[in-house]
């Protein structure tokens, strides 16, 4: 199951909550303001790494990263475009954590 997160983790608890429910192997895709979670060197780096270590692939939507001026992203996080978002949806049911 693909989990999408669209809120900044600095202002909103969504990412932290989602992690508690995440099953091993389930991918996480950050979109919209959610992409601030994966900016390299911020304080959510440890949480991102712990998610990756549980075999949960982590993605961020590149157009949203670009829009926010984020060029350096946390190690292990892959950036995808809208076509890549569609690819993930082909492979998984979707759980949008609004």
């Amino acid at each position, binding site marked *: *199951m693909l989990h999408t997160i669209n809120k900044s983790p600095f202002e909103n*608890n969504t990412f932290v*909550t989602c992690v*508690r*429910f995440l*099953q091993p192997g389930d991918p996480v895709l950050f979109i919209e303001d959610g992409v601030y979670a994966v900016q390299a060197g911020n304080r959510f780096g440890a949480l991102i790494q712990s998610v990756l270590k549980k075999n949960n692939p982590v993605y961020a939507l590149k157009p949203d990263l670009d829009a926010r001026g984020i060029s350096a992203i946390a190690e292990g996080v892959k950036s995808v475009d809208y076509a890549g978002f569609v690819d993930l949806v082909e492979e998984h*049911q979707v759980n949008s954590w*609004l």
Partner: protein
Amino acid sequence: MDTDIKKIMHVMRRAPHGSIYTYEGLEMILIMAAYEQDLSLAFIGDGVYALKKNQDTAGIGIKGFSRTFMALEGYDVEKLYVDRQSLEERGLTEDDLVVDVEVMEASEIGRLMTEQDVVIHH
């Protein structure tokens, strides 16, 4: 049309009254209940507040709806899952809630999520 029964989970995540999401979510659930699918509700984070007893909305001039959760049983919607941590963090217990629910660990609700065909957050 596909005639298989689909598993649809509604995830209540917001506090009631500050926004309409929970209320309109409940309207959606009541309609979907007529379609004989496999419906469930999960209450996570501030969503657990929707079930709090003794809500009196007269003062804010907004129609209350916590009692509508009691009506769900009549629609055969009986899978109401509450995240234990969300409840405890808010200083609430099952006794504070208007309906009988299953209080569960996040990992267990997470496992049920992965079995769903559709998950809708409200």
